[in-house]
């Protein structure tokens, strides 16, 4: 805290002279305006973040702590559970970039100009308004071995397709990605719809006059116009998928065993179930690096391309 105060006063001392027509100096007020946000974020978010990095270099069981350098990180690389967790996280990222984004785009384009569009869109958006935990309760009911999906298959005479959805890898991860698709498609659909409605009617008309129709019109006129909004949709989807936690925690707790764990769950189990604070911290740091590198790389490429 004192370091923060010193920085604040050092900052105000070097403040530019006030602009013309302005006799007040901002010293006290600046502190008043900036301090609450910086203090809350600094103490409750930035400090814990730095401490997590620091802790990842120790073997730490909550009672005693000994320096091990990079050992936690090197152990992770040879830990099968961690490798599986990275693989699952990769599946989540690929799956939620592919399904909700693509379906959202198709539904937005398909329903944009038809009369019954709003009704169809309402069906898609409704799940998005539910919270993640409620979605998980619902899909737990659907996917349990004695749940609704199997009962439905059996009622339709498709007993051969029945299976213990949540108990086998990789099926458990795949069905959870589908459950997330059910919830998240509405969000990307809304955003694409906004993008579509911003396309000038003349642009579409010009394409029609040039003889483009159907798929060609979509590919060479509509899609390029949707580029800015796609950057937003894909960016949000990318970051969210890397941080997947709630639905997996509620549907499988990462199990059976640790087979459906994502990085976020591995961190949670190592830290709070096994009390391996140093090891858990190393997982958290790796997750952070992946999130930051992925969003930075993606945004930089997209912004340059624009």
């Amino acid at each position, binding site marked *: 805290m004192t370091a923060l105060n010193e920085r604040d006063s050092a900052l105000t001392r070097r*403040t*530019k002279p006030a*602009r013309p*027509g*302005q006799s*007040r100096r*901002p010293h006290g*007020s*600046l502190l*008043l*305006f900036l301090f*609450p*946000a*910086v203090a*809350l*974020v600094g*103490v*409750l*978010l*930035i*400090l*814990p*973040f730095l401490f997590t990095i620091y*802790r990842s270099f120790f073997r730490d069981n*909550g009672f005693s702590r000994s320096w091990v350098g990079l050992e936690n990180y090197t152990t992770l690389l040879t830990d099968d559970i961690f490798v599986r967790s990275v693989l699952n996280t990769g599946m989540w990222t690929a799956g939620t970039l592919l399904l909700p984004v693509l379906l959202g785009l198709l539904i937005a384009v398909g329903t944009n100009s*038809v009369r*019954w569009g709003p009704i*169809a869109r309402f*069906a*898609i*958006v*409704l*799940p*998005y*308004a*539910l*919270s993640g935990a*409620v979605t998980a*309760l*619902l*899909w*737990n*009911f659907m996917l349990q071995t004695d749940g609704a999906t199997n*009962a439905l298959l059996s009622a339709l005479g498709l007993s051969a397709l029945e299976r213990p959805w949540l108990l086998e890898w990789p099926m458990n991860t795949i069905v959870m990605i589908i459950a997330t698709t*059910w919830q998240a498609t509405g969000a990307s659909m*809304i*955003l694409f719809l*906004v993008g579509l409605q911003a396309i000038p009617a003349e642009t579409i008309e010009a394409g029609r006059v040039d003889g483009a129709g159907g798929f060609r019109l979509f590919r060479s006129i509509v899609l390029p116009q949707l580029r800015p909004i796609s950057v*937003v949709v894909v*960016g949000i989807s990318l970051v969210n998928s890397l*941080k997947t*936690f*709630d639905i997996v925690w509620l549907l499988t707790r990462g199990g059976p065993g640790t087979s459906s764990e994502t990085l*976020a769950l591995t961190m*949670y189990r190592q*830290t*709070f179930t096994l009390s391996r604070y140093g090891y858990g911290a190393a997982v958290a740091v790796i*997750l*952070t690096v992946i*999130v930051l590198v992925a969003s930075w790389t993606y945004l930089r490429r997209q912004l340059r391309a624009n």
Partner: protein
Amino acid sequence: MARRVRDVLLIGMALLWLIPTYLVIVNASTAAADYAGPRWWFSSWGFFDNLATAFETADIGRAMWNSLLYSTGAALIAVFVAALASFAVVIMPVKRPAMWFWAIYTGTLLPLQVFLSPLFNGYANTTLYDTQYGMLLIYAAIAIPFAFFVIRNYMTTAPREMMEAAQLDGASWIAMFVRVHLPLARGALLAAFLFQFLATWNDLLFGITLSTSPNVRPLMAALAELNGQYAGLGPPVILAAGLVASVPTVVLFLSFQRFFVNALRLTP
């Protein structure tokens, strides 16, 4: 022909999307005693009895009240604090505004997992663990960076002349903030409030990490317990509780759809 295929596909998809919701409503309404495997049609009416069971056994009512308190409180604090900081960074002659922007905004880029264990230890050492005050504090802190981002973006578009007119009046910074900039940024304040209200309402991670007793625990943590520890109550009870837990988010989301969309579009 192609158009007809498209229509059939889209309508099929919309219907497919409605199946889980429909099944949940049907099964949440089935009397728990009658439940023997998933139902396809309404056959008995026990929704309110199911709800009563959930409220009594897992204290869902108390958890809803807690979540209402955290969501409203944390969102209000975060929006106010973020508005103050946005004003400082955008309007006041701060040295290096970009540095202050990143100092606050960084919080929203990091995954929540990276804060968890130090927060848990810190809370345990300062008796904030498992208190409403502690929950409110972390929810407010985690909400500030994004609220700041939305409000700051909005303030950078505030008309310069209006601001200068207020300055010539000899108004103090505080008066300028309260009389000119807060009212001007009304839309951004509301959007940020709604976003953070929903984010807090939906939070599971901090709820299961930093609280444990029914008096403090937020709704999503209580639902997780209902789904795990009390799974024996059966699907009708759990689904009824889940449906009621979604009412605030569904209502807020559907009534303010435009707002969310417009606020999201400010993101780069």
